């Protein structure tokens, strides 16, 4: 399968308000799509639809080899989401949370310990999430997102709340391995950084795609224009 994501006229409306309108693109497997746009532009909505959490109201969505929402069951286990919500229970420890997700995804529990060490939470893994700093929560959430080694990773501002060292530590986790590069969709408010890691850039404004091009040809100014 060479195309990881295929969108045609994707739209999502809430009543009369269109959160997304007419998004079409084709993303090859293994590449990174970075989505830019001001708040309310529809970035999170797009991510949620790709994650199979939201149904589109118009258009078609193909993720990996499944057409959503009909074939969502096929692709669900191969997608990872790291959004604003860490999706962790505050009264349980990181280890307990991750073990729970591991069981849901039929993942070997040993991987939980591996990942916790990889994100640097090994020492505090058995403390409740409520005692963690924001950065630690983000790291635990990242571990949760990649626990099942997803082919497609959806990241909503993944470096928020992280200091540069922690962000660097997270990088290898989020990019995948050379043998099996992950397809990634990342939302970003950082024009320079975002463009640097992107293969394809998508700019949204009020739900509409105003910019869609290979990242090499996009300038930082063009991204900046989205915010004006």
């Amino acid at each position, binding site marked *: 399968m060479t195309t990881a994501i295929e969108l045609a006229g994707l739209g999502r409306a809430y*009543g009369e308000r269109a959160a997304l309108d007419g998004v079409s693109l084709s993303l090859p497997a293994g590449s990174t799509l970075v989505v830019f746009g001001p708040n309310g532009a529809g970035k999170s909505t797009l991510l949620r639809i790709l994650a199979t959490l939201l149904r589109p109201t118009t258009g078609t969505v193909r993720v990996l080899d499944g057409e959503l929402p009909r074939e969502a069951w096929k692709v669900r286990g191969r997608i990872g989401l790291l959004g604003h919500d860490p999706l962790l229970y505050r009264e349980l420890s990181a280890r307990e949370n991750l073990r729970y997700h591991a069981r849901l995804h039929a993942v070997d529990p040993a991987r939980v310990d591996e990942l916790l060490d990889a994100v640097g939470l090994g020492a505090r893994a058995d403390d409740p999430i409520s005692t963690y700093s924001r950065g630690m929560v983000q790291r635990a959430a990242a571990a949760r997102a990649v626990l099942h080694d997803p082919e497609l990773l959806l990241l909503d501002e993944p470096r928020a709340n992280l200091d540069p060292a922690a962000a660097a530590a997270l990088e290898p986790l989020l990019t995948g391995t050379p043998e099996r590069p992950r397809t990634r969709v990342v939302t970003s408010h950082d024009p320079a950084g975002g463009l640097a890691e992107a293969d394809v850039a998508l700019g949204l404004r009020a739900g509409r795609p105003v910019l869609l091009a290979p990242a090499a040809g996009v300038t930082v100014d063009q991204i900046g224009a989205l915010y004006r």
Partner: protein
Amino acid sequence: MHGKGLRGLSVATIVVLVGAFAVAAFYAPLDADQGFRQKIFYLHVPLAIVALVGFIVGGLLAIQHLRTREPIWDLRSYVAIHISLILGVGVLVTGAIWAKSSWGVWWLWDEPTLVSFLIVFLLYGTYTPMRFAIEDRERQARYASVFAITAGAFVPICFGAVRAQPQEVHPQTFGSGDLPGPMWLTFLVCLAGMALLFYTLYRFEIAAKLARGRLRSLRRQLLDDAPVQRRSAAPTI
């Protein structure tokens, strides 16, 4: 475009209903021990039957909504339940009137049909508040459908459970099936009238909602002017 055939339907309803009341008032024989006031039975029971069937139909329409996810089915389900609720008020009121005139009390716990109906009514009474409490239209419709299906299945179970309770003093007037000929006939005519009433009201409300929806969408397209939609419990197309 919307509301085709409504005039004919309304006329038919009025004719049958008026005819039914006339038949009930003049043709049907007087009940031996209850006299004239027994005749409210011809109003109360058909109303109840139609309302209950309406609730169950609302559930069936909701199943269709969940299967196809088309908003029109949600509209149909909502209207069916809505109208049944209104008729339901009539059922409870006529039931109370009958109870008062026959037994001297405004309510009878011993009349299982009345009691079951009250429980069902209380359940469906939460339908509109529940819809209103969910802002997102699509989710509102989906949740309402789940509710309608569950409640629709509940209706027969509720009636069964309440009826199973041992009756004490009062006979199940509405339960007994052996009515003499003329009473049966009167009853059927009244039932037909009520069913027509339900159907006519149903068609009217659907037509009104569809027309209003169309108007909104035309205004939005042509005048760029649709008023901001307030939260509402009713589905909009």
